[in-house]
């Protein structure tokens, strides 16, 4: 099977710091791929390179076999790659509905939309409410309340719902459960499975080993700016994975990185 999304030889330098050091990356159709790694290993840079937030200095990324080169996140989104950033990328003073449709607003039908560019608020609000209900975030009483009035977990839920609703090819989740309680984390994990059930592969970046081992089909271990190895959760233990990513132990068949 061909990878849906493939990165080859990706390099990204920030001055003297090399964040990505000839890194390879593969995502297969319909899978949940977890990306784990120590702090500063370059996970975030890898994700940003895929989602268009960072332009790699070298290397090639292909989506469905075709080379892609995003110069900003909007292009990645147009190609069907949807990302939930750790910072959530939401405008605090704007409403939930506004945030969900930021950058892809719906316009009212007829002349009001085409000439006067009026937003179709009712349709946007209805859609936003449906998506939040799917996620079980019902205590949000008012879809027009500002995002800053939500709790951290609710905000994260809105960001995840946004990505799940619009991602058509790939959904990338950067630490989606970091700010969530036990119940909310469970819902996010269920949502991740739902998205996979729709045939959309997911990249999950997380430090939470139980979550990673529970939902991931494969685990990409990132170390010192490149892919150290890819393991299957059934074949390795959590402590192995932690040992690999911190350099305490080397996986079989991998030479010590120089």
């Amino acid at each position, binding site marked *: 099977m061909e990878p849906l999304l493939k990165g080859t030889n990706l390099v990204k330098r920030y001055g003297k710091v090399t964040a990505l050091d000839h890194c390879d990356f593969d995502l297969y159709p319909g899978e949940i791929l977890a990306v784990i790694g120590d702090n500063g290993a370059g996970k975030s840079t890898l994700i940003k390179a895929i989602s268009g*937030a960072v332009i790699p200095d070298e290397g090639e990324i292909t989506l469905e076999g075709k080379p892609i080169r995003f110069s*900003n*996140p*909007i292009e990645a*989104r147009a190609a069907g790659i949807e*990302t939930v*950033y750790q*910072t*959530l*990328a*939401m*405008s*605090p*003073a*704007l409403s939930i509905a*506004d*945030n969900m449709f*930021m*950058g*892809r*607003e719906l*316009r009212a039908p007829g002349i009001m939309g085409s000439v*006067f*560019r*009026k*937003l179709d*608020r009712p349709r946007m609000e209805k859609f936003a409410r449906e998506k939040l209900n799917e996620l*079980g*975030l*019902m*205590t949000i009483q008012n879809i027009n309340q*500002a995002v*800053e*009035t939500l709790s951290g*977990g*609710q905000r994260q839920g809105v960001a995840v719902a946004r990505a799940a609703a619009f991602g058509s090819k790939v959904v990338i989740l950067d630490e989606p459960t970091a700010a969530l309680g*036990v*119940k*909310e984390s*469970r819902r996010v994990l269920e949502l991740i499975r739902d998205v996979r059930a729709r045939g959309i592969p997911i990249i999950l970046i997380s430090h939470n*080993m*139980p*979550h990673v*081992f*529970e939902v991931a089909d494969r685990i990409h271990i990132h170390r010192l700016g490149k892919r150290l190895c890819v393991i*299957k*959760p*059934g074949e390795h233990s959590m402590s192995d994975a932690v040992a690999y990513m911190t350099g305490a132990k080397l996986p079989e068949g991998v030479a010590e990185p120089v």
Partner: protein
Amino acid sequence: MASDAKTASSFEEGLKGASEKVAEFHEEQSFLKRLQHWLHQTPSAVPLIVLMVALLVFGVLAENFFKAGTLSVVLQQIAIVGILGCAQSIVILTAGIDLSVGAIAVFSSVLMGQATFRYGVPAELAIVIGLILGTAMGAMNGLLIAKMKLPPFIATLGTWQILLSANFIFSANETIRSSDIAERAAALQFWGGSIQPGGIKILYAVFLMIALVAIMSYVLRSTAWGRHVYATGDDPQAAELAGVPTGKVLIQVYALAGFFCAVAGWVMIGRFGSVSPTASTGQLGNIQSITAVVIGGISLFGGRGSVVGMFFGALIVGVFEMGLRLVGTDPQWTFFLIGVLIIFAVAVDQWIRKVAS
């Protein structure tokens, strides 16, 4: 893998039988808290209340105050500041500031005048040229801020001086007299015209200002572009990641601000009759418009407030000036009170924004 999953989530078995609801809090909210929350949602309420109080106080103190004639003069006085305020509002909503608004207005009016009188361009075409050049000046601000990443305060501090001096150099400090304009290029004075229902004079300029406020209020509230302006000011990084082309939005905002300034320049010709490169708007337009915006409850930190609030802010200044003159106090009291109002408005903004955290 299955067994792994079980051990991984075994701690969650404690969830069985737990409430399915997400935590809800029903705290007894004090009046102050509810007021804070309400103001947070309707930022133009504060200036509206201040305006009402000011109208009441002056209505009692000065017997001539509540006359249609007086109120129409107030509107007439704030027409230019109100239009410059539209420009300043959209800029400040992006967490920027435009110190060059007055300079663009004066330079545009001079360009319109000189195009007609020095180069013989028909007045209507001269107006179009002035509007285009004003928009270009605003776009230049936008490029400096969005592309060269200069802080808006510094960029427009620079262009303010540049445009104002270019205006003096280009015009050779020459004023075009009102009578000449009326004779040869009446279109330049269009906004000085008025309707007089029942003897009360209302300038076209007043209708223009109200129309611009209404249009911008609609654009900011009900179009995607308006939402993008707020998002850009609220958190530019988040907006960029969420798919807002923030650089483009900034350039468009400053260019549109430049256009409004050029419109204000055209209105100035109507209001004053003549075209004067030394009009005080060049020096004071920025401070006056920022005052209207701040008193109107638009946050200098961006992303919060409404253009209708700015309109109320401009009205408050106009009502204070007129009211205090009718009461017969020293005119310095106007500035004293406006200074107090600015500090009050910013303090209220800080207090309201605490709801967010």
